[in-house]
Every structure is written in structure tokens, then in C-alpha cells.
């Protein structure tokens, strides 16, 4: 499974970034007070265990659609979950009436970067090679085997 994931990653990112082993960057808006985050704290945010920033603003998660290969790479590498498991978790949290985090799906990294850059409460991920000056990197993440 790991081999197939790596193959999938390689195939999908060669065309996008020219890198065979994609490194992902977790990004926020420069207006966000957070300077850096640990793997554990980013996981807590994406798993909706923490739904507020320190300044009490509700988190906005900006992510690709489930069928995007790099979405799977991100959720597997960081959260150890398949994309559909994560979607089920968000549905469950909403169904519980406890989803304060806003979950926004986009179709491209360009769209994701624009939304994150404009929203001080947003967090998302992009290939490290595609980080723009309008984004602040709070964590770099290898999508290789943990």
C-alpha cells in the first residue's frame, strides 16, 4: 500500500512540480499570528480536535477534493487516514452539532492558496515548491513513509 502510494505520488507530482518526492507545506495567511506548528498540532486542527486559533477565531480548513492524489498523500502522511475517512469525520462532527471549523473544498492549489492568503483563520497545504510569498509556511511535511 505504501509502495502504491509512493508511486501514485511520484506520478502525480512529477507533472505538477517536477519533484519525484513531494514535500508539502502547511500554510496560513501572513495575517495569522501563528509562526510555526508541530505535526501534532496540525493534526489536531485537521482532525477538528482543536477548532479555534489562540485568538479565538474559528479555524477554516481549505483542502482539495477527496479524489485529488495529493489530498490522499496529505491525509495519509499527516493524519494516517484515507481522504474519505476524513470526510466521514467531518460529516460526523457536523452531525454531532459540534463542527465549528469551516471546511472548504477547492479544485486547485491556486484556488487554495488564494483563499488561505486572504483569510487569517484559514489553513491548508500546498506542494512546497508552489509556496507563494502571500503564504506563511508553518510546517513542512514529507509525504514519504512516516
Amino acid at each position: 500500500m505504501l509502495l502504491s502510494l509512493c508511486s501514485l505520488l511520484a506520478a502525480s507530482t512529477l507533472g505538477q512540480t517536477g519533484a519525484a518526492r513531494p514535500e508539502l507545506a502547511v500554510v496560513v495567511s501572513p495575517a495569522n499570528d501563528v509562526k510555526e506548528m508541530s505535526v501534532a498540532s496540525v493534526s489536531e486542527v485537521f482532525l477538528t480536535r482543536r477548532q479555534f486559533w489562540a485568538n479565538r477565531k474559528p479555524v477554516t480548513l481549505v483542502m482539495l477534493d477527496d479524489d485529488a492524489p495529493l489530498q490522499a498523500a496529505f491525509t495519509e502522511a499527516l493524519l494516517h487516514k484515507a481522504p474519505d475517512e476524513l470526510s466521514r469525520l467531518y460529516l460526523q462532527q457536523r452531525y454531532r452539532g459540534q463542527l465549528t471549523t469551516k471546511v472548504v473544498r477547492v479544485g486547485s492549489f491556486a484556488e487554495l492558496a488564494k483563499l488561505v492568503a486572504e483569510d487569517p483563520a484559514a489553513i491548508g497545504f500546498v506542494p512546497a515548491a508552489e509556496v507563494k510569498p502571500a503564504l506563511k509556511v508553518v510546517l513542512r511535511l514529507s509525504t514519504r513513509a512516516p
Partner: protein
Amino acid sequence: MPAFLSRGVFALLVLGGAAASAQSEPSPSLHLGVFTDVSAGYHSAPDALGFAIGAVDLFVTGDLTHGFQALAETTFEADAAGTMGLDVERAQLRWTYSDALSITAGRVHQSLGTYNTAFHHGKYLMTAVDRPRVIAFEDDGGPLPMHLVGLSIAGELHGESLALGYVVEGGNGRGPVPDSVLNSGDLDLSKSINAQLYVLVKPIDLRLGANLLHDFLAPVASGDSARPGFEEWILGGHLLWQHRSTRVTAEVYWLRHLGGPVAATTFGAFAEAEVRTGALTPYLRLETLRSSGTADPFLAPDGPRPDQSIVSVGVRADVASAVALKLQGDVSLVGSTWRGAVIAQAAFSF
């Protein structure tokens, strides 16, 4: 009326007031969902093979402004005779200040353990085909008060490697019979009070917690459900371990009814383990439900119920977005009688 128009009108009715006073806040938004399921099952006692549709669960949430969220869950569900009935399962308004504080008012699922507040009436989200018996809903014969009409205050205080969670709830107590939830007032001045505390051990993804509930059930003087008044105590403990694709849940409850000639204890517990591998999630569940002491005039007015122990083995397959197929086998010992069941279920949401 076209669907988009009716949704828009409903959204305006529900959310319009909040929107008008919230210029700087994000716009209110409405989310609609439906959960339901279809099952086919063989049961050995009585010997029966048949199909069943589960509850059709209409679920609406609204993200209002200034930290408010609204939720309504309504189900259409068939009774044993096949007659469809309508139930408002939850209707709640929640205000969230931060991770450390939220206040919810309305009809909620009571914070007993983790399962009751994680999985509601839609079966798509739960791994097994149905709830454990000890936390079955009141109208399915469950012994515990799974719904509460009142107020719930909850939050989590996070540290680097630990978090402490709390819930304090108060509201109407039980009705004259176990499956009546008091939606429009209580029978007495005494309120049901439930407190839950838990700790999250973050490095190992473990949650451990306990809860204590107290209520006084007023006497019912006449009618079929006439009974003395007595105190209700519920002590519960829970464990939840969610690490990567493995999930283990265990909950245990002691329910005690005390007062006058009544000293009845009901003990129930379950443990459920699952491991997701690709689209498949095999699972195992062990359950027990027992009673002791005097006959319980509330839960078993017609005489003591037989103790039961159940072993369930199954597999869930997530075959498409929001579609799950489940196959489960049960072996149970009810009193001194062995029973078996095989259930196939398609559970979905849209």
C-alpha cells in the same frame, strides 16, 4: 416548489434574523443531510427472514453568526407493526465561545460515554449495523436516558500532551415510562443532572472518562404506568482509543434505582474494536446487559428481564462516497436460550 427555492425560503426563515444583525460576521449557512439504511436479516428466535428500512433521518444544521449553530434531527421510523411515526430526535441551539466552552440548549443526546454523542440515528456513520443494547435508544428498549431536554455545558482544556474535557448537563428527567422523553416540561421540581469528565492522552490517542447522573423520578399515581417514586443513579466509565485506522471503544454502566421498596441494579457494558484496511473495516463487539436486586418497576414493570450477552462479528465496506455495506453475525445468550442472527445492511447518506 423547486428544491433550491424551498431550501432558500427555509434558510431565510431560520436564519434571517441573525443575518440582519451581523454585518461583520460570515453569512449564515444551512446544511441538509439525509441518513437512512436498508437491511435484510435472519433471526433464529423467532425464526424469521426479512427486509427492513431503517429510520429516515432528516438532518439540518445552520451555522449562524456570533458563534451560534442550530441543529434539528427528525426521523421517520417504522414501529414493530410497520407503522411509520415521526420523531424530533434533536433540536438544539449551540453557542461556542472556544474549545474550552460551549453551551447547548434544547433536546440533545446525553453525554453518557462517547458513543451516544458520536453516533446518532443515522447508521451510515456507525461501523456496526446497530447500537449496543445498553445504549439503545429509549424507544428501542434501552435502559438509559439517551436524550435530554435541557442545557449542556461542555469544553476541552488542551495542554501539550494532555487535554481535560468536561460536560455538565441538566434538564427534564424521565417520563412515566422509559420511552417517554419529556419534551414539554417535567413531572416534578427535581432535575436530571449529569456530569462527565475525561482525559485525552494525546501521544497515544487515548480517551478515558467517567460520568455520574442523578435524578429523582416522581411517583406516578394512576394508570398503566403507576409506580412509586425513586432515585436514579447512573455511574459510567468509558475508554476510546483511536490510533490511525484502529478504533477501540469500551463503555460500562451501572444504573441504580433506589427508594422505598425499590433497590434495583442494571449493569450493562460493551466493547467494540475495528481496524480499517483499505475500504474494509472488520469489527468485533462484545456486550452484556444484566439486572439484579428487586424487580425494577420502571424498566421492567412486568417482571425481570433475562440477562443477555452478545458477541457480534462483522465487516463494513465503504463502497462509494457515503455508501457503506455491512454484514454482521450475532450470537447471543438470552436467559438460558442461545440465539443467532445474520444481518446485511446498506447504509447511506446524501
